[in-house]
């Protein structure tokens, strides 16, 4: 008894008051203390299900008692955790307000030991009783379901073992029946079947052959064909089974018994009226019996029997659809057609043992959901609690964790995350929320949503890079999210959880490195290799556009180096690079090929002459005391369409300038062809 004491949360800013109350109550309860509202909320967050009762002061720093009550209303804790207000405030208004907010009782100061103990004990018992009741309900439902399905399984296995079949037949029929009916409901509302009905029918399907227990085993297990007399005896298993269920003295009105009767009696009827025992036609045959009949035939075809081998699922479906194994409701045949791939894939996964536990859990869930009882509210709360734990943990690690719900559209951020991003923890309507867009631009956020929606339940995780604005900077972040999907046949996107990682420093370093590899360090222009790639790309996509490749080197650069020193030489190279950059378009390409040799690749409209002149003029302006002279050769994409040839042509033209007089430019023309070949 002692070790299992219930917990009471005492919330009061005065340590003395808390210990006075604790002193009075600790004999019977375990005491948890909080010195203000915020702490109380935190404790409730973490230990909601442990706390049996709250004693709550009104006037407190940080968050007062009314604040705590409002919060408890918002989270729903107020429904399960009783709150007794404690305060010296005796004004009627205070009491009214506390009652309005869901407090169940009120103790005013000064504390009287008997009053405190009595009120706490009474209210505690009320709350505890409620919790126990709902736990009891869950347990009882579980037990009942478990007993039910256990009994059915035992019964049907007796039949099957006597029948020389594996125990799997019952499970298969059960599963197929369920699938067929679910499919049927999704295709038509002709048969009013609730999930509960489907559950009962598929459970009762296990009983379809219990009548066989009355059939002599020589007939039952006869390997060859039945004689007409034997067949008449065999056919009786339908009526015998129905009789067994009909003769049950009590509980005749149980749904399971009623449905079981239908299934036993009529699972060998045919839609065209040529079945047995009653020759019912069409929907005279209850839908439960129709579904089980189809399931029975499908599983019999696909299983090995004493008198036959197993057919492949595909063949079995074809045989049934062609009417080789009886006639069925066309709607059910449609269902079978739809389900065929699923049956082929999943039926062998249904095995003894594991099926039932899942089913029981499932039906407990269903029943609880249907009755809207406290117990299901409780499991929802348990989930909620897990979620809170997760958030709390993520706060500890300081990551930006988010949770996105699509309907109603909201975005929740972890506490630390909200702090880091400078946003509130809850963002409503994020697609149209200006505050949110100030961090995560609308376009980017839409891109993220799109990529989440295009994930799937099977591969739910997405990873993407986005630039967000926070802490006064635009930073690279990596977003990893697990998308959440509904559990229907075609799952819908429900939301996602994920985290946003600040990878700005790494990314910037990476991008710089990438850039560095492309760029000539001295001048910041592209290097040889990059220029080649970029120019080839432009040429390949040129279409009707015209380009010129200009190549030049600096005249007498070596002498300048010798005369003024290497440092000066470097400065000249940098200055030339700057001049190039200043005089070409951003879409043009400029590169230093090595040494004092440069290449410019530029687009032109009618004639390349004017811009060549202009660039040449700019490049040959004096730098410090050095007269910059260049020899430039130009080749146009009309002359050749590939980089190598253009390069050689420009090179040839450049050498013609050098040979002549230096400090000038020349266009490649056909007369230079000879020299080109020579160089080749």
């Amino acid at each position, binding site marked *: 008894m002692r070790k299992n004491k219930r917990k009471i949360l005492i919330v009061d800013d*005065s340590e*003395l008051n808390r*210990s*006075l109350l604790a002193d009075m109550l600790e004999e019977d309860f375990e005491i948890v203390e909080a010195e203000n509202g915020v702490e109380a909320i935190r404790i409730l967050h973490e230990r909601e299900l442990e706390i049996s009762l709250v004693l709550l002061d009104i006037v*407190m720093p940080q968050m007062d008692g009314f604040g705590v009550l409002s919060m408890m209303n918002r989270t729903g804790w107020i429904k399960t955790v009783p709150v007794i207000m404690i305060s010296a405030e005796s004004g009627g208004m205070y009491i009214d307000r506390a009652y309005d907010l869901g407090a169940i009782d009120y103790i005013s*100061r000064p*504390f*009287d*030991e008997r009053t405190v103990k009595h009120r706490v004990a009474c209210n505690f018992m009320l709350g505890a009783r409620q919790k126990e009741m709902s736990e009891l309900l869950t347990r009882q439902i579980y037990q009942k379901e478990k007993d039910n399905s256990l009994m059915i399984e035992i019964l049907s296995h007796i039949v099957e073992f006597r029948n020389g079949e594996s125990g799997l037949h019952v499970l298969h029929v059960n599963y197929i029946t369920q699938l067929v009916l679910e499919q049927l409901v999704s295709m038509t509302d002709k048969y009013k079947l609730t999930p509960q009905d489907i559950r009962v029918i598929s459970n009762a399907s296990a009983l379809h052959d219990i009548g066989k227990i009355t059939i002599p085993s020589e007939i039952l297990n006869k390997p060859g064909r039945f004689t007409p007399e034997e067949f008449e005896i065999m056919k009786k298993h339908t009526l015998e089974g129905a009789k067994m269920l009909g003769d049950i003295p009590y509980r005749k009105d149980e749904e399971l018994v009623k449905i079981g009767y239908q299934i036993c009696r009529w699972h060998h009827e045919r839609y065209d009226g040529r079945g047995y025992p009653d020759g019912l036609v069409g929907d005279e045959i209850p839908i439960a019996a129709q579904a089980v009949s189809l399931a029975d035939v499908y599983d019999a075809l696909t299983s090995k029997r004493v008198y036959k081998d197993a057919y492949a699922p595909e063949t079995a479906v074809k045989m049934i659809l062609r009417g080789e194994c009886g006639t069925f409701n066309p709607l059910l045949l449609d269902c079978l057609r739809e389900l065929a791939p699923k049956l082929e894939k999943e039926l062998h996964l249904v095995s003894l043992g594991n099926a039932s536990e899942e089913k029981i859990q499932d039906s407990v869930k269903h029943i609880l959901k249907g009755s809207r009882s406290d117990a299901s509210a409780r499991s929802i709360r348990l989930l909620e609690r897990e979620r809170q734990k997760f958030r709390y943990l993520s706060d500890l690690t300081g990551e930006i964790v988010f949770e996105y719900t699509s309907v109603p559209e909201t975005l929740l951020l972890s506490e630390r995350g909200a702090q880091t991003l400078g946003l509130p923890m809850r963002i409503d309507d994020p697609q149209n929320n200006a505050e949110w867009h100030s961090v995560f631009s609308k376009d980017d956020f839409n891109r993220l949503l799109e990529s989440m929606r295009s994930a799937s339940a099977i591969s739910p995780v997405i990873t993407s890079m986005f630039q967000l604005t926070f802490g006064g900077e635009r930073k690279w972040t990596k977003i990893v999210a697990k998308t959440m999907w509904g559990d229907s046949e075609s799952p819908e996107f429900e939301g996602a959880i994920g985290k946003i990682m600040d990878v700005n420093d790494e990314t910037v370093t990476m991008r710089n490195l990438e850039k560095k590899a492309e760029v000539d360090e001295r001048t910041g222009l592209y290097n040889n290799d990059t220029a080649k790639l970029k120019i080839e790309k432009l040429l390949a996509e040129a279409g009707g556009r015209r380009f010129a490749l200009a190549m030049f080197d600096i005249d007498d650069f070596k002498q300048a180096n010798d005369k003024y020193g290497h440092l000066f030489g470097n400065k000249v190279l940098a200055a030339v690079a700057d001049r190039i950059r200043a005089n070409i378009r951003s879409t043009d390409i400029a590169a230093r090929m090595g040494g004092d040799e440069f290449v410019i690749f530029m687009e032109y409209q009618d004639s390349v002459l004017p811009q060549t002149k202009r660039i040449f003029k700019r490049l040959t302006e004096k730098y410090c005391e050095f007269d910059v002279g260049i020899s430039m050769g130009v080749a146009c994409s009309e002359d050749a369409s590939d980089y190598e040839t253009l390069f050689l042509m420009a090179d040839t033209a450049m050498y013609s300038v050098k040979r002549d007089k230096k400090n000038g430019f020349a266009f490649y023309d056909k007369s230079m062809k000879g020299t080109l070949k020579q160089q080749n």
Partner: protein
Amino acid sequence: MTVKEVYSEVGGNYEDVISRLRTDERVARFLAKVASDGSFVLLEKSFSEKNTEEAFRAAHTIKGVCMNLSLTKLYDSSARLTEILRGRTAFGDDLSALFEEVKKDYLHTVECINKLN
């Protein structure tokens, strides 16, 4: 001094407290806590900083404690201080006289509590 003597010395109601808290031992234990409680220090500090909101809470706490322990005299003065501070934002000269009274009652009460045997 016995618990009863302390109560008569500081102007408290011994009969009332003992009817609620049941034993001398428990009352003595909680009186000791009054002496070590930080609320008065907080009250003094908030007065020197002219922080009326914090002063209200400190006075309110003292009042609550006194009520629980039936320390009637200190309860009266702290209750009056609490009421005058309630909902107030501006600091005023009218507060200091009341504060001095609470201070006097408080120090006297603590002095007697410290004489408990």
